């Protein structure tokens, strides 16, 4: 492409980034407003809302709780999703389309409906509302995304490698863990980040399946009843910064691992 289109596209990218990030900048700013409601004009400023977030044990506890749920549900979704993707790729068998369709189903069901369906169903299965019920519902909701991403990557796996390994006498399990899985790692990391996002941001399922400990979105929703205050903005900002730090740390470590592997 010509230089002009390249510049144009970079402009579009940055314009889009601005569109995504400007509301966040405002959100952070509003956390410093010395009033009970967010909005313009800001007449006086305060640090109290931010200090309050760290002093509030419930917020910190809830952040940890949401993180734990995100990690565990993502881990389950990755295992199940990869398994299903491996099963469905490169094989033609009776009922494959049906299984694929059913696999993708949870991704397309409106939140409220799936949450209530899960709530009734959990009772039928005898699962108590609480952490594990939330993890279960998040994992189910995330499996389709893992399957989509992993299947896309699997379809580009050169078959010759697996065949060569099999010719050398490796059994399917070893072939999977030593050939297929390393090849899938980037896709699984991408899918994992995505799953964590979805779990972290989920309100309805956590609300209907949760017990007496709220997840972050549930806590924020409850606080909203007495108004969108700078407190909520401060909480969100702190959470954002914490997760960003975690994300950057993970990305850096990945790079180092890659470099080591390449050495």
């Amino acid at each position: 492409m010509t230089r002009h289109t390249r510049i144009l596209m970079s402009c579009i990218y940055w314009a889009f980034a601005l569109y995504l990030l400007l509301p966040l900048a405002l959100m952070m700013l509003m956390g410093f407003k010395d009033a009970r409601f967010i909005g313009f004009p800001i007449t006086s400023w305060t640090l109290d809302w931010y200090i309050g977030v760290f002093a509030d044990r419930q917020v910190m506890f809830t952040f940890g709780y949401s993180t734990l749920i995100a990690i565990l549900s993502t881990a389950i979704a990755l295992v199940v999703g990869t398994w299903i993707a491996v099963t469905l790729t490169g094989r033609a068998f009776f009922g494959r389309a049906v299984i694929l369709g059913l696999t993708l189903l949870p991704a397309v069901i409106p939140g409220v409906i799936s949450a209530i369906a899960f709530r009734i169903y959990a009772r039928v299965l005898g699962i108590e509302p609480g952490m594990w019920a939330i993890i279960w519902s998040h994992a189910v909701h995330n499996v389709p995304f893992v399957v989509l991403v992993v299947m896309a990557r699997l379809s580009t796996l050169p078959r010759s490698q697996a065949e060569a390994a099999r010719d050398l006498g490796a059994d399917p399990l070893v072939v999977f863990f030593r050939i297929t899985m390393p090849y899938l790692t980037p896709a699984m990391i991408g899918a994992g980040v995505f799953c964590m996002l979805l779990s972290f941001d989920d309100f309805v399922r956590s609300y209907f399946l949760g017990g007496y400990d709220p997840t972050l979105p549930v806590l924020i929703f409850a606080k909203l009843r007495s108004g969108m205050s700078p407190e909520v903005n401060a909480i969100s900002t702190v959470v954002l910064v914490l997760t960003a730090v975690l994300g950057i740390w993970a990305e850096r470590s990945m790079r180092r691992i890659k470099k080591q592997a390449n050495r």
Partner: protein
Amino acid sequence: MPDLPPQSPADPSGPPTFWGRLTAWSLYRALTGLVFASPRRQFWMLILFPVIWVLVAHLGPILQMMQVSFLSSYPPSAGKEVVLTTANYSRFFGDSIFLVPFWRTMVFSVVLTLTTLVLMYPVAYFLARHVRRDNQLLFLMLLLIPFWVGEIVRIYAVMIILGNNGALNLLLRWLGLIERPIPFMYTNFSLSVGIVYLTALYMLMPLYSALEKIPANYSEAAADLGAGPWTRFFRVTLPLSLEGVGAGCTLVFLIATGMYATPVLLGGPNTTLFSQTIAGFFHVAGDQWPTGAAFSTIMLVTALVVAGAFNRIIALLSGRVAK
């Protein structure tokens, strides 16, 4: 590109690896011998778990919902007899008031999906083709940041930008472009801004991964054969990325049909969507689950049919290109 393990599994020369020791372990050999005895058995072992999972965890809740949609009342309450009925479905077809938000949702979702596609394609293209491979993840992460903040908080941030006294109106007034604030909020505009904000990611990811897979030398080869930039794009890049287009559009369309909080907060009197109608049966009234379940089923089926048809077209298109 593939990260090959440094040693092949049966490498006899190196020190004993974890895998080497594992495969030498007799119990493991006995087990794998049993499980992997024949390709047929291998297949059954592989497929057993997915089938159980999909049936129990994916299909179960939906069947439960469908069952509720055929009941006369749910949750069961004292003194009311529960019978099977199709009244909940006929209610939808019997009254035009439900069809308005229904069609509005479908049309709105299609328009928004296409808008998102047009907006996100250049972004994905830029990321996949013009950013150095090392930096791609970083550029992608930058766009992912907003998604770590809850939907509601983000929507309120959009509200204080678009409000009569919001950042945008203040800016326009300061620039002297307007005298009276423009009412952006509670219109199709504010709703679209909000929904694109929330769905863009679902379009970006599949597009990016499809574009990233296309080898750069295809385009160069076409250029060597004398194809201009637009020809190259429409004859080479676009067809090869159709798979990503299909996946992205399907996701965005289905998510847009099911959005709830965004239309409630950013929409106005003339933008009521079907998900709001459905939620009404569960929330405000609280006692009309069967109707809500029936309407959900109707919406689900319609959305799936639309998405299926769309994917069919994409498949046909890319099939023709492949020939």
